[in-house]
């Protein structure tokens, strides 16, 4: 036997050992997963008295078992002759398996489940055997939506968000053009201008909510400067008298939505700005020079030379702005909770409110609202995907 042969047979032996081990591990993991580990057993093994407290450890045990089963299954698969013959075909599926399954289970399937909920009347409860208590009512939820004035308010507000949020794109471009210089310290300015995007929307909502306060917020302060005087009455108490009362931006139905949108624009503008700043960085200097030689300046240069080259940035800015507008939830929840009188509801918030908010859990009705929102989003998603598909094909 030559040395090479010994090495090969040695390698085969270790592989055989590994396969046997993986097979055993797979069997053990699966048996434990399906027959031995449940909440009761976890609780008794760990000596936990309340079953509720055993949920998290039980979950982790199951997770470890699942991962063990997966890994050993993969070891088995890649050692089969079938895999070795077809590895180029099979390998991508092994790489994809976990991530894709995870994504499909948590994101793709729920979309369809939600749509199916929308044809039922359900409060989210299940019977002891795990079956749903939902009752099929066909299109009833959608018929109710048609007659629900709050739904139309939400729809209208969603439209307002979509339209006004688009302002973030030109404003962001404006700021990017303003900052696209090379003076000392400009990098710090750029980062500081980007600042609002990094902060949580809840915090932005709180900041602006306080900003809009008519009595002691910024708005009240500015208003007071122009319209109010302080009077001291006979007893010596200071009283503020205003010729026109300061607007209570978040408290009045006609202003509240605009107030929230302005707050939402603040981080969104920062995002668009950063997209354009990086875009401007990549504009080809040759083309600018050529444009200059042709006598293009200022606005003309921007429109005919720069903007076409900024298209990837613009596309991305539109994508994130549309998504941001339709996802507006955090700010509404922090600033007005949909009020006053439901006037700042958008579909996203109204759905939450109906399904698990103050109400009694109208899962079916909430799902119908979510389905409408999804349908609106689908128009954009299809457009984005179509654009990306075209880019991909050109790229090949």
């Amino acid at each position: 036997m030559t040395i090479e042969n010994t090495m090969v047979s040695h390698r085969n032996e270790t592989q055989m050992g590994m396969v046997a081990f993986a097979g055993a591990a797979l069997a053990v993991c699966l048996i434990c997963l399906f027959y031995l580990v449940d909440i009761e057993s976890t609780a008794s093994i760990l000596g936990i008295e309340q079953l509720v407290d055993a949920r998290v450890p039980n979950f982790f045990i199951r997770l470890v078992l699942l991962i063990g089963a997966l890994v050993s299954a993969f070891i088995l698969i890649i050692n089969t002759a079938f895999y070795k013959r077809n590895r180029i075909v099979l390998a991508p599926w092994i790489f994809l398996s976990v991530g894709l399954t995870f994504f499909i289970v948590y994101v793709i399937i729920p979309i369809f489940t939600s749509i199916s909920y929308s044809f039922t009347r359900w409060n989210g409860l299940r019977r002891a055997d795990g079956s749903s208590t939902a009752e099929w009512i066909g299109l009833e939820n959608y018929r109710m939506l048609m007659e629900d004035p709050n739904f139309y308010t939400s729809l209208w507000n969603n439209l307002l968000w979509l339209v006004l949020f688009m302002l973030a794109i030109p404003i962001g471009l404006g700021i990017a053009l303003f900052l696209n210089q090379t003076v000392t310290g400009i990098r710090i300015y750029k980062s500081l201008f980007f600042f609002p995007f990094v902060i949580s929307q809840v915090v932005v909502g709180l900041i602006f909510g306080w900003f809009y306060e008519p009595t002691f917020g910024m708005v009240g302060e500015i208003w007071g400067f122009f319209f109010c005087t302080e009077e001291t009455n006979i007893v010596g108490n200071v009283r503020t008298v205003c010729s026109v009362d300061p607007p209570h931006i978040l408290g009045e139905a006609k202003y509240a939505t605009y107030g929230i949108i302005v707050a939402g624009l603040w981080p969104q503008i920062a995002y668009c700005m950063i997209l354009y700043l990086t875009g401007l960085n990549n504009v080809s200097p040759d083309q600018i020079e050529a444009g200059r030689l042709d006598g293009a300046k200022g606005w003309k240069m921007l429109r005919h030379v720069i903007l076409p080259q900024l298209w990837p940035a613009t596309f991305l800015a539109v994508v994130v702005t549309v998504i941001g507008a339709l996802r507006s939830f955090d700010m509404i929840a922090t600033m007005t909770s949909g009020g006053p009188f439901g006037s700042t509801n958008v579909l996203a918030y109204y759905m939450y409110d109906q399904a698990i908010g103050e109400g009694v859990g109208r899962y079916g009705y909430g799902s119908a609202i979510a389905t409408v929102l999804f349908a609106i989003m689908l128009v954009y998603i299809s457009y984005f995907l179509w654009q990306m598909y075209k880019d991909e094909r050109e790229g090949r």
Partner: protein
Amino acid sequence: MFPAPIEKASSAKQFAYKASLPIALFIWLLPLLAIFLTSIRPAADINTGNVFGIPSSFQMIENYTEVFRQSPAGQYLLNSLIITIPTMIIAVSLACLTGYALAIYNFRWAMPIFFLFIAGNFVPFQILMLPVIDMSNRLDVYNTVPGLVLFHAAFQTGFCTLFMRNFIKALPQELIESARIEGVGEFRIFWYLVMPLVRPAIAALAVLIFTFIWNDFFWATVMLQDASQLPITVGVKSLNGQFVNQWHLVSAASLLAAVPPVLMFFAMQRHFIAGLTLGATKG
């Protein structure tokens, strides 16, 4: 470079530009400055109407310790970390695998699956909400941190895959081809050849996912109920109810919530921006 470099303009213009920068920045960050000033002023200032002026005394340490003393802010911050870090690790590692599969192998399903990830990533949260709650309930992980992390990780895998796939696609493909001809196994190529090359992408994704999850409010509201598990975003909102008219404390708490992502951003700025612009830079 566009617009024309300011260095070429007259010195008066240059001066005007340099002067306008701090003014513009001041106006832009005014809300933030105001809240910062409020967070370091004594409560008495707010009652006497000194809301935007110079604080009568600086109480930075007092106010911030007060927040920790009067509320479970420390617990909230810790919870945020407990939710954010595992999500970041799971989502980014899964995306390395899926992104690799979609970028390297030219199989028929590569494009449809890639588009599935992108499309799922754009979906409104509300259409996922009820089924995810129901599923978590049946998996016994509703109202637990692992339940929330699991969902976050699955959802963020979409975005991470999009980014990773584009990044790996831009690597020189000949490298992988030649390794294959040498007889290197697929998993070895992935681990020893591609992984070291995608480190910048991993860094970019890690900071982005950290920020996204740290700032998440919706899913934490929906999936967690016990006050002891809430992350800081939800915590700050409930503090807002608790500290009625104690704006100095509310603003201190809000700023605390903003600190970690801000630090992350400044520490990893280049990666952060590379992540957000998703290859619009390559244009």
